[in-house]
């Protein structure tokens, strides 16, 4: 347990000392929300059913944090540490792989969640973004969904890191995957403006399903109507965890 706590502490410090990673993990989403809010404002418009742009899209931005953390930041960091031999040095100690992964996931989860909560606060406080129903329960539900999303895509990141051979490939594949998926998910541009065909294809992306879940909860849909995105995310979480657990390598 002390090993897990120390590892989590060291991992948090390392992140804080890397300005680029810290920016992506914490400040990117709030700044993105701020930027979008400043550009589009939050005046009610017809396209969003007489809701403002921020009202309608704020929770979708969550998917950006989740996707970058899982597809880009985590695999590159993990593969780099494998390539430099840092993980190998851990392996020569009694440390269990699960302690290492647990600490790493814990820190990334905390940072991502922090980022998302600050982003939601920016939208709500600066632009008066509101859900369809009461704020508190909607915020709680969205936070829970964000947690599930973060976990799912961290597992995907671990699976990618286990499968990818080198840092170069991780970097390339991460970037190739993440931007189309963000675009398709409706996190950056509302899916409503996309052609029908693209919208249909987008439904197959788990990131799109995360956005559907977040949107559903924010607009007061009961959880029972959101079984499809929940099922998809849970399935991806289980599958990615299985791959990551089976293929994890220290070197």
């Amino acid at each position, binding site marked *: 347990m*002390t*090993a897990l*706590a*120390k*590892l989590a502490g*060291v*991992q948090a*410090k*390392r992140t804080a*000392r*890397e300005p680029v990673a810290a920016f992506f993990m914490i400040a990117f989403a709030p700044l993105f929300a701020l930027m979008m809010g400043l550009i589009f404002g939050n005046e009610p418009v017809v396209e969003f059913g007489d809701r403002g742009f921020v009202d309608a899209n704020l929770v979708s931005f969550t998917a950006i944090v989740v996707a970058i953390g899982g597809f880009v930041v985590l695999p590159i960091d993990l593969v780099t*540490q494998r390539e*430099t*031999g*840092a993980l*190998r*040095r*851990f*392996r*020569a*100690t*009694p*440390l*269990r792989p699960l302690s290492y992964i647990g600490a790493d996931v814990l820190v990334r989860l905390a940072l991502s969640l922090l980022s998302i909560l600050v982003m939601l606060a920016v939208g709500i406080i600066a632009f008066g973004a509101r859900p369809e129903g009461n704020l508190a329960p909607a915020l709680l539900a969205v936070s829970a969904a964000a947690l599930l999303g973060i976990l799912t895509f961290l597992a995907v990141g671990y699976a990618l890191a286990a499968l990818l051979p080198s840092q170069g490939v991780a970097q390339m594949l991460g970037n190739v995957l993440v931007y189309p998926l963000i675009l398709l998910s409706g996190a950056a541009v509302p899916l409503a403006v996309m052609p029908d065909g693209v919208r249909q294809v987008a439904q197959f992306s788990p990131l799109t399903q995360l956005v559907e879940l977040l949107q559903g909860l924010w607009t007061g849909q009961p959880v029972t109507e959101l079984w499809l995105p929940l099922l998809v995310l849970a399935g991806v979480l289980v599958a990615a965890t299985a791959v990551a657990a089976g293929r994890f390598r220290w070197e």
Partner: protein
Amino acid sequence: MTTATGTAAAATAAISCRNLTKRYGELRAVDGVTFEVRQGEIFGIIGPNGAGKTTMMECIEGLRARDEGTVEIFGADPERDPRTVRERIGVQLQLSALPERITVSEALDLFASFYAHPADWRPLLERLGLGGKASSYVEKLSGGQRQRVFIALALVHAPDLVFLDELTTGLDPQARLAIWDVISDIRDSGTTIVLTTHFMAEAERLCDRVAVVDHGTIVALDTIPNLIASLGVDSKLSFTVNGDPPMEALRAVAGVSAVERDSHRIVVRGHGNRFPHDVLGVLADADLWAQDLRTEQPTLEDVFLTLTGRHIREGVPA
């Protein structure tokens, strides 16, 4: 540990390897190696590049899966029982790194937390000459300082057995001497040490016994004096002398095999530790004294050359 001999062996052996074999495709990187490392000794593994030293060491540590044979560290199999073994061993890897952006003290604190019984690492840093570097980032240190951090990490839990792979490669001579002192101290406090090295001077200075490894097998294993003696190569003593030396009396000295005059130098060849002293005694009896005295003894390098037909390349990592 059921028989009397088994108990005795278990009490003295830190490592016991039988027929240890590791293959990479057709290549037998380690080829049926059998040996024991006794508790409390410094055991050296020396050999040329690609001889299989590191692979052998990593199979023993349990970091590489062996293909055949048995390995026991304090009676436990490092592959079947890795955590028990890793609690008791410290490892300095030849190729190693730490996550970036952590300080020396954070690294030691972190690694100490992985063990059930960590030692106090602050005195260790002082001993390794890193006392002033505790709050420096590991990646900002010089190569020699970084190497010492990894040695500290290998010792952070006061292990019973330490593996050091190419301990002082890349260190300047002064740092090397300092590390040798630390290693001797650690052995004196009861820790068993296994090291690989390219530096004959390092092996001669530190090792109680060495295994000479070539093509994945141990071609010789003994104390360094015994290995040198087994060569049967003469030592050489040469000097100039202030007069006419008694050549016949010199040839009659026990252990002397030849006495030659090389222009104005006298060259005496012989074996054993006594003959140089006796040769000087003969000169003194004739009221002569030797000047510009030089001795040349066979070294571990000669052992190496004889056994493998190759010079060990000093200072080049494997």
